[in-house]
């Protein structure tokens, strides 16, 4: 059942604990409405996100993956997000080689106070994935 067929697609989000997870909380506390497709996995820092997680998710059933961390220079761990940026930028270039549209992967920076920005990020990315359509057509027909 996973996602509600026809209404939702499968989007996985990796959020750093200090900024973006807090930003998503702030959006919630402020009741900023968002599409429901996103499933959030909390990580301590966006630098913890192994590009392989992203590839694994996209290859096994996700239609889109979003990574969000602290703003550059505002990282709780000094520069964990710089490592994230470097790795994820590389990943973006590699995705087409495994047959995945790079637009299905997005990384961004949202701080704990930016509830409104979070709402925007989720809405825009979800819309983008819906425009691109499902990545795993076969599987969905089976399910």
């Amino acid at each position, binding site marked *: 059942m996973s996602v509600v067929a026809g209404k939702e697609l499968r989007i996985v989000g990796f959020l750093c604990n200090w900024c973006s997870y*807090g930003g998503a909380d702030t959006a919630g506390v402020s009741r900023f409405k968002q599409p429901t497709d996103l*499933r959030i996995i909390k990580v*301590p820092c966006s630098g913890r996100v192994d590009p392989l997680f992203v590839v694994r998710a996209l290859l*096994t*059933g996700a239609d889109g993956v979003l990574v969000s961390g602290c703003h550059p220079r505002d990282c709780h761990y000094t520069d964990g997000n710089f*490592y994230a940026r470097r790795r994820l930028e590389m990943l973006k270039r590699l995705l087409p080689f495994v047959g995945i549209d790079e637009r299905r992967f997005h990384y961004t920076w949202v701080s704990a106070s930016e509830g409104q920005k979070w709402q925007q990020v989720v809405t825009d990315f979800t819309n983008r994935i819906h425009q691109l359509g499902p990545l795993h057509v076969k599987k969905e027909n089976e399910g």
Partner: protein
Amino acid sequence: MRVGVFICHCGNNIAGTVDVARVAAEMRKLPGVVYATNYMYTCSEPGQEEIKQAIRKEGLDRIVVAACSPRMHENTFRKTIEKAGLNRYFLEMANIREHISWIGEDKELNTNKAIEAVKMAVAKVMNNKPLYSSSFKVNKRVLVIGGGVAGMQAALDCADGGLDVVLVEKSPSIGGMMSRLDKTFPTIDCSICILGPKMVDVVQHEKIKLYAYSEIDEIKGYVGNYQIKIRKKATYVDWSKCTGCGACMEKCPTRNAYDHFNFGVATTRAINIPFPQAIPKKAKIDPEFCRQFTKGKCGVCAKICPTGAINYEMKDEIVAEDVGAIIVATGYGLFDLDKFPEYGAGRYPDVITGIQYERILNASGPTSGHILRPSDQTEPKTVVFVSCAGSRDKSLGVPYCSNFCCMYIAKQAILTKDHIPDSQSYVFYMDIRSNGKGYDEFTRRAQEEYGAKYIRGRVAKIYPKGKKMVVRGADTLLGTQVEVEADLVVLATAVISAPGAAGMAEKLHISYDTFGFYVESHPKLRPVETNTSGVYLAGACQGPKDIPASVGQGSAAASKVLSLFSKDMLESDPAIAQVNINACVGCLKCVKTCPFQAIKEEVLRNGRKVAKVIETVCAGCGVCTSTCPCGAIQLQHFTDNQLLAEVNAICQS
């Protein structure tokens, strides 16, 4: 493995848009889940009791609580299961409130999303390992950054509580903004009269070590063990010899140095003591203006100084201090006139800021307390105050209220009438915000007793006409344009974050908002804590605040530090990186990427090189884990297995 799942209704907060009973029912179908229930308020005492009983009755060994954000109650539930005999890391939370019930409108979609969120938590908790904290010693010294009223209060409270305090102030004197104010609302107390003694207390306290005219260069370490580098900026005066006699200042031939203390209302000498009550009362050379520096010759002060304290060769000096906690009290900044081209952008000398007017009102200010306008040093008979100059102005990037301007404008209107009985004040305002004790009565007094004319509307333009400044605004209550021919115009300019606030936050690893104000841990319940343990906030660095609120926060931050230091040992967070030496190939990529230099090379007895984590230094970011090519270094509680279990729970169902 016996997982128990507890779904919270949170009253209607969750149950209103998520079918909690269905979530629980679905969870019972999951392999490994032996118990699932839903409850009105899981965080309440009976709610926690139910978890404990279920652990005992059902023999549960892993717990998932689906409720609010873990940032809210993870600690609560960790303690709960610990009391029932489980390791605290056998808990996972699914955030079905902030991330689901509050943001989605469709109950069907929300319920499905909640089911998945709990599934992910179940998948993760089944991969959790017990983790145990170790303890480490605390350095019971505290660093206070900023010597304004909030920082001073924090320093004094900590010192009175028996702690050694290091107080760092970037200006030549402590006292901050409050030392510049003339009187304080709503009592019209003399500001320096109530602050001065406190300043003396600070400098005389044997537990407080004061670094004035100094800045924080570097902060390293973690709660309990910080290493600080402080830059003592060159004053070109040996403060151990300077007696503050002021002879140098009197004889200095440079009379046009910018007067930072007076916000440029007057000029000062190139060597100066900022104000009579300055603490420390020591002279300092401003090399931007000093002829010895700009022209290479002068030396008057060196000749005149009776103690030979002048040293033109002085350099910045770096000193190290070790502390266990930090209180940040760096205060605020103010919009400058250049932000207001429609008000002349500083071209008109008789359009000034509120803080400049404080200096003009002040007895120790450049006009000795006589209100004289800057252009021609005459007494203004008509004074116009413009509130919200930049505040609540989205177009200038300040959508927020500056908090205390309404009050100080009322105070300045009252003082103007006191100084010049035949004067008339006009106040342009949008709303009067006077919500403190005795505050509203005070703004009424300004109007009722002191005859200040309050005009509801904004000012669109200020321009000179002869010797007058014409202030053109609106009276929205009358629905007309109004004009006042003023002698002096005072703008209540917006409160902004202190210059350099963002850079300081980056050194401290604390968060700041879009405006540069520091973010507290919880807006209601943890107002002086930050998300970095051991770092606390006080005063206007967190947002515009008046004196009582700043003082209150200074004391609050001090009490937090005192309670932190009430133990000799602190417990470390065990969620740090761990090396599996059997898998480590010794490439040491992790050593290079670790932002904290927490990994070092270790040579095993068989001569093999491997990575080793220094437990007390590791902060738990996990950059090493995603760097390691063979999965040998794993951040505990966020291992590859744990995170992939979550990915699989979403993608492969």
